[in-house]
């Protein structure tokens, strides 16, 4: 099975082996015809209408605004519905440095996102702490507290890099198995294992 998205040719991506390996792993056990086709339909829908939760803390957020403006126009790919409520968003787009004071806020917003949810780390700061890595109050990368799907390096990344990263997320979604939740990251029990105090409240 090949993963194709409309916006970009397969040979233009630089990491096809990675995604091929992912597909191979997922298909190793075989897929039910009905469920498999239903998966395809759902994934087609999700991947073409990815709604970001804006989480811009600094410079990268301004580049993200450029993406929304007329020249780069991310509406072409279905990314334009930037939400400010985690309840309505598909993925969290971390744009900028995350510091100690912000960490619990970001974690809470991630927990509030509805499944299936994804995380994109944009820019050097979100990827690794960037130029502020050695600071006393900067997180050395958001992957310390969130599971990251796509990393977009740059300081700030150019709009083209943003698009490349977003398309990588689209490709990842295209191969996921929605029924059975093979590559959904956070399970219910895992959440409670991490937040034992929430067990009584949500159940």
């Amino acid at each position, binding site marked *: 099975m090949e993963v194709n998205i409309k916006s970009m040719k397969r040979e233009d991506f630089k990491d096809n082996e990675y995604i091929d390996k992912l597909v191979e792993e997922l298909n190793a056990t075989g897929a039910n015809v009905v469920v498999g086709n239903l998966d395809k339909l759902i994934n087609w829908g999700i991947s073409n209408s990815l709604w970001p939760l804006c989480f811009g803390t600094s410079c990268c957020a*301004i580049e993200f605004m450029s993406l929304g*403006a*007329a*020249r780069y126009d991310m509406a072409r790919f279905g990314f334009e519905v930037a939400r400010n409520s985690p309840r309505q968003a598909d993925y969290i787009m971390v744009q900028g*440095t995350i*510091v100690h004071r912000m*960490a619990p806020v970001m974690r809470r917003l991630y927990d509030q996102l509805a499944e299936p949810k994804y995380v994109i780390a944009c820019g050097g700061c979100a990827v690794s702490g960037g*130029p502020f890595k050695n600071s006393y109050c*900067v997180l050395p990368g958001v992957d310390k507290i969130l599971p990251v799907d796509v990393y977009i390096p740059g300081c700030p990344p150019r709009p083209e890099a943003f698009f490349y990263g977003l398309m990588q997320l689209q490709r990842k979604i295209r191969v996921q198995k929605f029924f059975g939740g093979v590559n959904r990251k956070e399970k219910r029990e895992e959440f409670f294992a991490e937040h034992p105090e929430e067990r009584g409240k949500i159940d």
Partner: protein
Amino acid sequence: MSDIKDLIKAINENITFIEGGECLEIQVPDKDWHDVASQLKNDDRLSFDVLTAVVGMDWKESLGVMYYLTSTKRGWDMLCVKVVCDDIKNPFIHSVSDLWKVALFQEREVYDFFGIKFINHPDMRRMFLRNDWVGHPLRKDYDASPEKNPIRLNDEINEDDTVSYVEDANGKVSKIAKKVFEADDYVVNFGPVHPSTHGVMRFRTAVDGEVIKKVDVVSGYIHRGIEKLTEGLTYPQILHFTDRMDYMSAHQNRHCLCMCIEKALGIEVPRRAQVIRVMMDELMRISSHLLSFGCTAMDLGATTAFFYGFREREQVLDIFDKTCGARMSMNYNVIGGVIADLHPDFQKDVKALLAIMPERLKEYHRVFSGNIIAKNRLKKVGMLSKEDAINYCITGPSGRGSNWSCDCRKVRPYSIYPELKFDEVLLDGCDSYARYMVRMLEIEQSCRILEQLVDNIPEGDIRALNVPKIIKLPAGHWYQQIEASRGTFGVYIESTGEKTPYRVHFQSPCFNLVGVMDLCCSGHMIADLVTIGAALDFVIPDIDR
């Protein structure tokens, strides 16, 4: 100078003069500081009416604060006052926040970084760090081990609690516990992740119905500790931080830091580099004001205007892209000049921009400025009198919207600005609309500056040739100011003669801007908080640093 010296000497016999600085410097003992400060401000012959910068210092054997005062009435004369704490174990300094309101926030910053407590300050909380943070990071003996301050994923508690230190007649200081809000206040939380705060700022707002009673600014959601980071890096290595503070004034901020280092080293920047720097500064100002226009409009629901503003901004970014190699975080100025020569298309592109701007500005005014909704939402909203603007040190377009002549390019000219013909835009509306209009008119003035320079870029070197390979500043301290897009940006450097600075302080204009949110918003509807914030136009990473 000498008569000012005599006047200062007459205030108090304990004042000592420090020789060898770039401006007049005095040292005042803490017990006399408040009296001396009030004389310096209120004596008509001295009238130091602006508190420009408050720099906390740790000299290892003592802690203290450097205050930079400016007198607007006497040609923007500067005075540096050094106040040293008597006791390093339990450091106290008398607060001057009742004289200069700008100190309300500035002194909280010093407390956060150095642990110096200010006597009679009404609200001595941390400014940028979590309230359960251990230690004061800018002290030289700060323990940065992650065990002391791990990444905490719990919320902060006791956010309503604050303290105040008061002194009785015998000089005994006692601690008084206070609350930020009154017991029956209804507090609405606004931010830190909110699309209309222009970043990650948090306002805790006490409301009575829909009317705002008090705004409590909670900052620090993007505090990256830049000032501490600079202490471990060499001078060329610290330059890039300025681009990432106020990313909409990247060129100006970096220009300022370079100027401060060049001043300390005595480097003369070649004429060509000076012209390029000024042109880049003005292009940056245009791009910043266009963004501000777009965001103000979008906050009022006028999304179309946002697209218009960004259309022209892209054109400016293309110019940066070609010459500097990046759309944002350009890293263009270096010590002694600029890093690369202009792109061959530079003049053509700038001329193309200048050709369309007058027509486009008219379009903006037609789309947004004259709109009845915009006028109703901005006019007579967020009033800030000239006296308050001076007291809170509100510089930049926001200060000039209150008719305060504070343009650093005019009042303390630097680089080649004295040779250029441009007007300082002053409006006396004192409201959000005036601040917005100053920005739009400043785009015209920036275009005027570019017109004068675009055909007159002299040939020559782009970097001074006598910049040493290893840059070591002589022992001493320097303060340099510049007009950034949002106000007067200042850099303080203290050096002990090493390769790395002993202390660097960035005096950001936006930190003062956010300080007037409480004053401007009180009495208005909660919906106006958004427009007042948009018209003040603060950039959060510049506040938090």
